[in-house]
């Protein structure tokens, strides 16, 4: 029993240490390579994605959708 408990504790420690080191690294890569490259592409193609609202618009209300869901819609997380 103490052996199993010790192994478990070691496993927990190892996982925590890996998480402390790996997670920030993965996030750094995801941000600067994933989002960064997307940002460059989006900038190059002057995508609507990065544009703010047109301040000359007569109204800033947008038509809404997705507000009358049926059961199937409700099962989806998007």
């Amino acid at each position: 029993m103490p052996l199993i408990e010790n192994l478990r504790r070691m496993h927990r420690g190892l996982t925590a240490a890996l998480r402390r080191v790996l997670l920030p690294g993965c996030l750094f890569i995801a941000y600067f390579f994933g989002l960064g490259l997307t940002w460059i592409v989006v900038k190059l193609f002057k995508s609507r994605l990065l544009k703010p609202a047109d301040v000359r618009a007569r109204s800033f209300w947008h038509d809404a959708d997705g507000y009358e869901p049926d059961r199937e819609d409700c099962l989806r997380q998007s």
Partner: protein
Amino acid sequence: MPANIIGLSCHYHDSAACLMQEGRLAAVAQEERFNRRKNSPDFPLQALNYCLQAAGLSVFDLDAVVFYEKPYLKFARVLISHLRAFPRSYGSFRRTMPSWLADRLALPLVLQRETGFSGKTLFIKHHLAHAASAFLVSPFEDAAILTADAVGEWATMARGRGQGSAIRLTHEIHFPDSLGLLYTAVTTFLGFEAHEGEGKVMGLAGFGRPIFLEKIKSIVALRSDGSFAMDQSYFDFYSEDRMYSRRFVEFFGKPREPGAELEERHYDLAASLQAFIEEAIILAARDLHAQTKTPNLCLAGGLFLNCVMNQKILEETDFKNLFVQPAAGDAGGALGACAFVSHSLLNRPRDGRMDPYLGPEYPVSRAKRVLTNANLAFRELSDEELYRSVAQKVVQGQVVGWCQGRMELGPRALGNRSILGDPRNPAMKEIINEKVKHREPFRPFAPAVLEENAAEYFHLTQSSPFMLLAPRVRQEKKSVIPAVTHVDGTARVQTVSRGLNPRFWSLIHAFADLTGLPMLINTSFNLRGEPIVCTPEDAVSTFQRSRMDALVLGNLVVERGAP
């Protein structure tokens, strides 16, 4: 098919769980009351367990669990907004992604891990949850609906109509244009905490003049239909502790450090912000009235915890009846999520009654045990003796902690977890602050008045059972109730009806028998920075750590200094 439906809200702030059985509200509570962390965003395991226990159910009796937003949609918005702010948004990305990856994108798994529930998990859009939380528990068969908060998935504001059990939201404003975020940005600029200090800014506004209104309008374009667009160069929604940019500081001057002395310009900025928000919402409400032509309006979303603004909507639009449920912020999303599935999807009938007293209650045996363990002497009184005795204590100038029955929902104490005082005493605000609350001196205390007498004291055209209206105090009564009259001549009123809270009604009635005034000061039973008390243990601990004069747990009365 039976319909035991649980609604959940969590992972942002104010997490909560709500249970509806056959379309009737059975239990609802916020997680902060159990884990004792104010505005806790944690998965509401204890609140969920309480709901099940209150109804004698296990998770296996549930027909569905409904979440108050669509996580994937929200995640897409988070990624796109980080993209827009690249590379400034790195700090925010690093801070928020771990919780998205571990919990927020895997709610069914979290639910199974935490509770063992493996049945249907449903998701509805955030502003639909807000809209449902307002309309489906309102007394109206037909009403216009307006929701506004910081942000849901993309929407920060939505409008539409409810008829019968159907809700139709037709328009929305999208992130990053958000009145809620604007309010929070100015709140942080004024040195208060985000998601906590907004109520303080509302109190501060009463002392200022709206001299910065035009300046705010120059950075937030406002249209006559209440829609708006914010110049994003003045804001920064990705920093850790503030939400305004350097440009905002150049425009409005130096931000106030937390705890620093308040200057006139701080009061004026708060007043200007309040005036702007009121103008925007009143325009939106007028436009909505022109489209729907109904006299009824339901409001939800954190912005509508602003009782001063709610009052203005009632006074300055053609809507005659307003309904705002007590947890108008995100905690109410849990209520809206299960109400939508129960009524709109499963067609369970609505009963048109919002009972806010659906939190836990504790047996007298537990209260006695807690008091005995704390070495506090107590007397057990009959109901009549209790009302008379507590009313007398309040007349004598005492500050009384009053803990009764089932805990109320929402951020305002509604007479079951309250601290009470005498509204006639001009010094009472300072006394309560000194003995218990330690709040900022500019924040007013609220009156709880018998519903049948409310119009004698306030310019009130409808009841305000959840303390979400702030009518003007009648001129001739201002000197009668100085402790609850704010500097701007308004009061954040709770109207107390015998039907909804008979014990609190009887206590106020007993006070009226002694004094002729059917009203008490009612402030939440908590110490500064803590959530409202839930259990007898919480109440006793708060009593012991404060200088409150007396504590009432059900029919048990404890007096400070009694042997």
